[in-house]
C-alpha cells in the first residue's frame, strides 16, 4: 500500500487529520481483507478434499476399516465412524468459511464507503486500487 497519495499533484487539496485517519483505516481494511481472502481460499481447497473423502468412503466396502489421519499417525477406524468424522469436519469448515465470508463482505463494504469519500475529495490524486 505504498504511496496512496500521488506525487506532483496539481491540486491543492488540503489533507486533514480526518482524511489521514480514513486512509489509515482503508489500509488496515485492505490488509485484513487480503488475509481473509487467503484463508478462504485455503478453506475452500480443504472442503474440496473432505468432499472427495466422503465420496471415496461411500464407495468403500462397509466392513472395511480405513486409516484415519490423527496427528502424524493413522488410526484404523470403522467406515461409518470415519464418515461421521468427515461430515463433522465439513460442517466445521463450512461454519468458519461462512464466518470469514461475512467478515470479508463487511471489509469490502467499509472499503467501498471509504473509497467513495476519499475519491470524492481527492479525485485522481489518490490511488486506492488494490494492485499496483
Amino acid at each position: 500500500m505504498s504511496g496512496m497519495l500521488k506525487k506532483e499533484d496539481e491540486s491543492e487539496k488540503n489533507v486533514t487529520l480526518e482524511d489521514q485517519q480514513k486512509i489509515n483505516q482503508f489500509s488496515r481494511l485492505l490488509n485484513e481483507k487480503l488475509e481473509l481472502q487467503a484463508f478462504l481460499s485455503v478453506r475452500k481447497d480443504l472442503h474440496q478434499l473432505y468432499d472427495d473423502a466422503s465420496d471415496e468412503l461411500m464407495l468403500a466396502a462397509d466392513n472395511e476399516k480405513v486409516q484415519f489421519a490423527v496427528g502424524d499417525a493413522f488410526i484404523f477406524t470403522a467406515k461409518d465412524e470415519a464418515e461421521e468424522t468427515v461430515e463433522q469436519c465439513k460442517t466445521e469448515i463450512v461454519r468458519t468459511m461462512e464466518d470469514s465470508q461475512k467478515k470479508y463482505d463487511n471489509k469490502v463494504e467499509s472499503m467501498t464507503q471509504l473509497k467513495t469519500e476519499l475519491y470524492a475529495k481527492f479525485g485522481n490524486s489518490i490511488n486506492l486500487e488494490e494492485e499496483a
Partner: protein
Amino acid sequence: MESQEGTLPLGSLNIEQLQNVQKSTEQEVQSLTEQLTQLTTAQQRILSSKRLAKEFGKQPEGKEILLPLSGSVYVQGKLCDTSTAMVDLGTGYYALKTLEEAEEYFQRRAAVIKDNVDKGTQALVQRRQMYEAVTSVLQQKMAAAQRQGAS
C-alpha cells in the same frame, strides 16, 4: 542467460555487462548452494528411515513402547507387526512392504537424490569458476579504466 556459458567471451564485455554477469552468477551460486543444502537434508532423512527400517525388524512383537501420535503427544502402546511397514511413495500414495523391501525403497530414493546432489555439485563448481573468472576480468578492466582516468 547465455546458452554457451562456458565459452562466454568475457574479454569482449564492458564493465557494466561484466557486473551484470557477476551478479547473476553470484545469485546462481547462492541458489544452487541452497538447493544442495536442502537435498543433503532430504538425503539424511531418507538414510535415517532406511536405518530405522532395518532396526525395526529386530524389535520383538508385543514390545511396549511410548509411541508418537504427533510431535508432542505420546501414548503407551505395543508393537504388533515388526515385519511390515507402510511407506509413503509420494503424491498421496502409500504401500505396504516387508522391511527389506522398505530398505530397498529408501535405497532407491537415496540414489535418486544422490544423483541430483552430484549434478548440483558439478553445476556449483562450474558456476563458482565462472564467478571467479568474471570477477578477475572485471578487476582487470576496472584497474585499466582507473589508469586511463588518472593519466
